């Protein structure tokens, strides 16, 4: 009972802390430029957040189980290329989307295979698949590096044109998927298994949890969400680009860590990652609005990640005292 109380207390502190960081950032940027909280900018931020929201929340589940996926950017790039090619081949949006999602599931399956079946350390395995995805993506795009342009105008209907309240369909699909992920994490055995595996893999195995199957499934979920993110990015920019996802693995990790998910596994929350993603997107968009050059982004992101892990450690120490 005491323990349960302590855990919920801990979780409340984390929730409040992450939320207050977001509010602080929004307050700072809107005090510098009121444009920041005006409708068009907010819609823009939400639209651009879709890929990172999908990837970040899926990766959260995986990281709770103590695994890591650096291939998300590669998958995003490859699926962006494939989706554009399929659309250009006039297969229709439904077929193209289904095939692309199937590819994402397949890539997640490969990652899972490398990690749980062949027992290659996640960092190396997913770096290798990242390399493979980007390689294939570039190989399939014109000239080996080129962007795939000339997509039909109607492609923006998914992630760009307003559908409801000014937001595109992709946003609502994302909300739905995140809702599913939150339920998966909080209410199903999959979420509990992930926590158990991240906390102590051997203990989880000994208590009868099928670690192989669970982690494999989590990699597949990440692959699926990354593919959907690839489709959303392609639709938003009406452009197929093999390197469009580069750097999103870092962003996703920052969002997850900002959301207070323990990087060694065993604890975390999909819902808080959403706030983490919004923090990153507001920072990026805010820097643009107040006129900072884009080359400041890397430094700011690095600092945010470092500050986030340091605070996470400090907060944890406080609570445990």
């Amino acid at each position, binding site marked *: 009972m005491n323990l349960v109380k302590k855990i919920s207390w801990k979780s409340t502190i984390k929730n409040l802390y992450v939320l207050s960081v977001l509010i602080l950032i929004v307050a700072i940027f809107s005090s510098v430029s009121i444009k920041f909280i005006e409708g068009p900018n907010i819609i823009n931020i939400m639209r651009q957040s879709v890929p990172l929201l999908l990837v970040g929340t899926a990766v959260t589940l995986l990281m709770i189980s103590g695994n890591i996926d650096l291939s998300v950017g590669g998958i995003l790039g490859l699926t962006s290329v494939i989706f554009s090619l399929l659309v250009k081949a006039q297969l229709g949006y439904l077929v193209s989307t289904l095939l692309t999602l199937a590819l994402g599931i397949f890539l997640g399956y490969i990652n899972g295979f490398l990690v749980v079946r062949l027992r290659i350390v996640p960092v*190396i395995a997913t770096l*290798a698949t990242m390399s493979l995805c980007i*390689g294939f993506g570039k190989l399939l795009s014109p000239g080996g590096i080129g962007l795939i342009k000339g997509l039909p105008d109607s492609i923006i209907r998914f992630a760009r044109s307003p559908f409801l309240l000014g937001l595109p369909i992709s946003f609502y699909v994302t909300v739905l998927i995140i809702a599913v992920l939150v339920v998966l994490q909080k209410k199903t055995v999959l979420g509990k298994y992930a926590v158990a595996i991240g906390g102590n893999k051997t203990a989880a195995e000994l208590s009868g949890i099928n670690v192989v199957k669970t982690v494999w499934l989590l990699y597949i979920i990440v692959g699926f969400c990354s593919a959907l993110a690839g489709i959303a990015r392609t639709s938003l920019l009406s452009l197929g680009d093999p390197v469009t996802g580069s750097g999103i693995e870092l962003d996703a990790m920052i969002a997850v*860590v900002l959301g207070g998910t323990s990087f060694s596994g065993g604890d975390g929350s999909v819902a808080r990652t959403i706030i983490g993603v919004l923090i990153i997107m507001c920072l990026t968009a805010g820097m643009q609005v107040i006129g900072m050059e884009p080359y400041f982004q*890397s*430094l700011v*992101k*690095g600092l945010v*990640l470092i500050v986030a892990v340091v605070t996470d450690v400090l907060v944890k120490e406080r609570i445990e005292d």
Partner: protein
Amino acid sequence: MQSLEKRNTAGSKISNLTFVNLAMLCVLAVIFIIASLVVPRFFNINNISNLIAQQAEIIILSIGVTFLLISGYFDMSVGGIISMAAVLSAFFCQAQGAAASDLGSGLGLSYGMAIVLTLICCMVIGALNAFLVVKLKVNSVIATLGTMALARGIAMIVAKGAQRITGLPPEFKAIGQFTIIGTINLAVVIMLVLLVAALVIENMTVFGRRIYLIGANRVAAHLSGIKVGKQISLLYVVSAFLAGVAGIVMASRFNAGNCALGTGYEFDALVVTVLGGTSIFGGFGSVTCAVVGAFILGILSTSVNMLGFQPSMQMLVKGFVIITAILALRFALDKRNV
């Protein structure tokens, strides 16, 4: 009992590490021979000395990464540190106020001074890595990905997202471009010196042996009186220092402080290290593994290029090769240690 002992030693007078080194050396030899036969103009003194020169930076870089990996830690920040070192080494020695643009004028220090300052800056990043990983016990992948973004961010801001190329002193390009024989340049000499030093440290010093013990069993290392934290901190600083050297060499080769230099090198350093046989679980490996790995990857990449494939094929080759290498090595070691 006796049979077990016999089985472990029978027919294997060499250690697992020597076995892996020899095996990978054979793979290197085979790949080299195949490349010489298949790829036109590959077996040619110019091409081969080029190949050696091209590996200088990655080998310098992978010394530090190897040591850390042997002790069970990752350093992903090296790619960012290369960019930072490249840009800073240019910025420090660019003539002061010589050009109208911001990018043309730097601090106007001597090149020697610029190198020293750059390396100090790199070691500060290394110290930050050590602080995060050792003191705060942050997962080493995440911590060093953060410092990678930080270091690259510094490079991008100092180079304003582009490069510093004008107003550089003539000696700036010496390291990368001054050749001794053929295309063997100063960078290769630096690589050889660092390599010998690394091999001596690895095999003949207490410090070197401790790295293996920490990687094999950190708790045991701690209990036997090794100051694990201190040792790992030192390794992170050394790794950052070596990445700094690699960055300075690279900037010198291109005669420019470009903030895009070093992109993907954290991956390449890992690839060549693991390719040569260093275990990602720690406790096993050697700098010689990294050298062999670097040449295997180098020959494959050059061949892919010379055979006229698209450059994107290199990404595919890297991906396939690393997975194959890990699996093949594990298979070989499993068979051997049954």
